[in-house]
């Protein structure tokens, strides 16, 4: 039987919810960029921001569930060995159901609008002259070639600040082309091309990993990429052996 603390569960629950929400929001703001690889593109920056926004939106919801559970376990559990008596008979509460539906719909619509907006930004092609790189996956290596030159390489070099368009295909089965630092991922399929583009905005080295299970050495289908200055990029291109 609940004691005379009828009002207290709600106040305590509210306080718990508040504390958990604040903690959740703080974690949501600071964690994503620290837990994920260093952002090296505009895509990735937007992706991390989206994760922050989604986490902040989720924090009060999750906090509510946990606050409820904690306080239900503290105040509403039956003590003793006897069979518990019946609880209050509440079969319906139109106000609660409607409010819940309304809030969850609004939250969903907000996330959807943000997501579609981010998608539009990602897809918007800003540059008329992106650097095109052909990416070919095969069991179990990546190779990159630069149309317009005769350069082919197993490591990816990109000039900073210039939009790059990856045209991805496979020589055998489906692979997954993924640059974790840049938030770009697209499958490499045999017999067709897929494209994805981004603009690297940080110098440095990054990993390219295969995310589509491709057989025996899937776990070892990794190669390196480098974002370099425009000058260094030209130097590198010129120094590559020219394929006939």
């Amino acid at each position, binding site marked *: 039987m609940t004691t005379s603390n009828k009002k207290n569960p709600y106040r305590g629950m509210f306080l718990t919810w508040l504390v958990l929400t604040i903690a959740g929001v703080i974690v949501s703001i600071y964690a994503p960029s620290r837990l994920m690889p260093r952002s090296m593109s505009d895509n990735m920056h937007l992706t991390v921001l989206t994760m922050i926004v989604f986490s902040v939106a989720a924090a009060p919801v999750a906090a509510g569930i*946990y606050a409820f559970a904690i306080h239900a376990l503290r105040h509403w559990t039956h003590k003793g060995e006897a069979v518990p008596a019946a609880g209050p008979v*509440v079969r319906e509460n139109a106000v609660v159901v409607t409010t819940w539906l309304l809030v*969850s*719909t609004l939250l969903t619509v907000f996330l959807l609008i943000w*997501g*579609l907006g981010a998608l539009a930004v990602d897809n918007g092609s800003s540059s008329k002259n992106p650097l095109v790189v052909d990416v070919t996956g095969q069991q179990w290596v990546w190779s990159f070639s630069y149309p317009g030159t005769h350069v082919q390489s197993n490591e990816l070099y990109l000039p900073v600040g210039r939009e790059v368009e990856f045209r991805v295909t496979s020589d055998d089965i489906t692979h997954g082309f993924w640059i974790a630092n840049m938030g770009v991922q697209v499958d490499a399929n045999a017999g067709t091309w897929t494209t994805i583009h981004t603009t690297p905005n940080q110098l440095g080295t990054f990993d390219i990993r295969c995310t589509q299970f491709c057989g025996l050495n899937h776990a070892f289908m990794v190669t390196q990429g480098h974002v370099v200055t425009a000058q260094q990029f030209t130097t590198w291109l010129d120094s590559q052996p020219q394929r006939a």
Partner: protein
Amino acid sequence: MTTTLEHTTTDAAPLGGGLARRQNMATALVGGVLFAWLFWFLAHHFLDASSRNYSDLVSVSLTIGWIIGFWLGIGALNAPARWMMGRDNTHADDMYLAGQNQGKARYWKYCTDHKVVGVQYIIMTMVLLGAGGILAMAIRTELIVPGNHFVDQQVYNGFIAVHGLLMILALIVAVAGPWGNFVVPIMCGARDMAFPRLNALSLWTLVGAAGLLLTTLAVGSLSMGWVVLEPIANQAGVGMDFFAMAVVVFTVSTTVAGVNTICTVLTMRTKGMTLARLPIFVWGAIIAAALGLYAFPYFALVEAQTIMDRTFNTSFFVASGGGTGWLQANLFWLMGHPEVYVILLPAVAALFEIASVMARKPVFSYRTAIAGMTGLAGLSILVWAHHMFTTGWAPTLGGPFMLTTELISIPTGLFFLVLIGTLWRGNIWMKLPTIWMFGFIANFIIAGVTGIYLSDIPIDNQLHGTMFVTAHFHYVFVGSVLFGAVAALAFWYPKVTGRFLNEFQGRIAFWLAFIGVQVTFLSMFLSGLRGMPRRYSSYALIFEHTNFITTVGAYMIMAGMLVLLGAVITSWNKGEPAGPNPWHANSLEWMVPTPPPLENFTVLPVITEDPYNYGEELVRS
């Protein structure tokens, strides 16, 4: 605890005499192996051994032989054969098939009593979970440190696929199998399912499918995840044929079970049991069954086409012939997404039931519960391509699929509303079912929220194919569905056995599993966020700490599951005795004796209200 049937001396069918009366799992296995060999032999004899597809053709023939022989051996084909010959079962035959006077032996046989089938499903669930769990431990043991030290890549890669399918099959049946069969007919006030022989068929077909799937481990050489993407599936060895045939056979089992459940609930409710008075669990069972009827044909077809590409060199998924792997992906995920709700809904509906009984309050907003489950099932048909956001297929459809996927969070949220509303200000009885239910609540919110991340395309571009996805769906399947399934087991265990599942051992198991889930899968989220793809047999050094923690957590879950298994086994005969209605609930299964007699009711009850009035004398005529 022996059944009340063992010593009746009414017009029971005479035991002995006739091959059909001696059929059981042993004869099924013999039949399966015999016909598997026969079909192998015939294929071997008539096919050109130098042909590129020889081994696949022979393997497929073998698997077809296996299931035909298995069905023959268990007696599943007796009734169709007799029907065709114009001989129908006599009443004595029917009572024999229902297991009358056969004691424990009937659990090994083709038994039409829905309660026997329910118990058989409990065993099958544990077998599948156990086998999948052993593989999970092998996988995590391999991943405890970088490098391939425990098993080599080839073996490891095979483990992943079989672990995946074993667990998926286990979870599809985990709640719907045991309780959809044991409890639902009684909840409706019926004497059995609509089609009792089909009921036995669905169970034994599952056993046959499981046999094929487990054989895959021995045959080996799988090269893809359980999703069986093409065109890589064409590279796999003959294990792939066993795997695909296991799926095809499984869809027969699940189709038959789905038809049975729906017909039972719609046509066999007792007088006064309107749809609005049905326990909410029954609603979950039929909505899940209907969704399964929609989804599983795609699964059978896509696996059949995979087999055809391998054995006949068709070009469904091979680019050089005009096919495309994207066709496979679409067909698969048309099944694959509704399928996760086929798995989830029975567990959620069972928890609604448990919440009500344990809080001593009616289900909050019964209508919302039904609307939520129905809405979820309906929407789930429209979201499948969110699994394909990064494939490069139809980028213009990304927005619409993002819309439908994010909308699904609304009916999912309603599940929380119903659970919370039911528990709100209740007199919550803290027994085993309740504890596992709270575990579900804590885990499901994480499962749901991380799904929302993945539904957003820019985030999915980053996280797809990483361990983040793996952690997300393990929070769904292990953290949520499995916890719901254990809650359901603890809840209805006294009805099956007449004893409580050991409370102390059950709590130990809970804490091990609950803490284990957080340790395992939270660290797995970190691995994914940091950049570790999934299905990796080894990994770079930057992932070693999170992987180590994940493996430690996995061992905790395993320990919890072993304790639970021990509890299930020992409580069966030695647990604390429970009366016929230990939870003082009102639905019909608690109104019949434990164990329920054959045909459940001496006199079919007439219902005048729903089962959610506690503390009052439930008025029945």
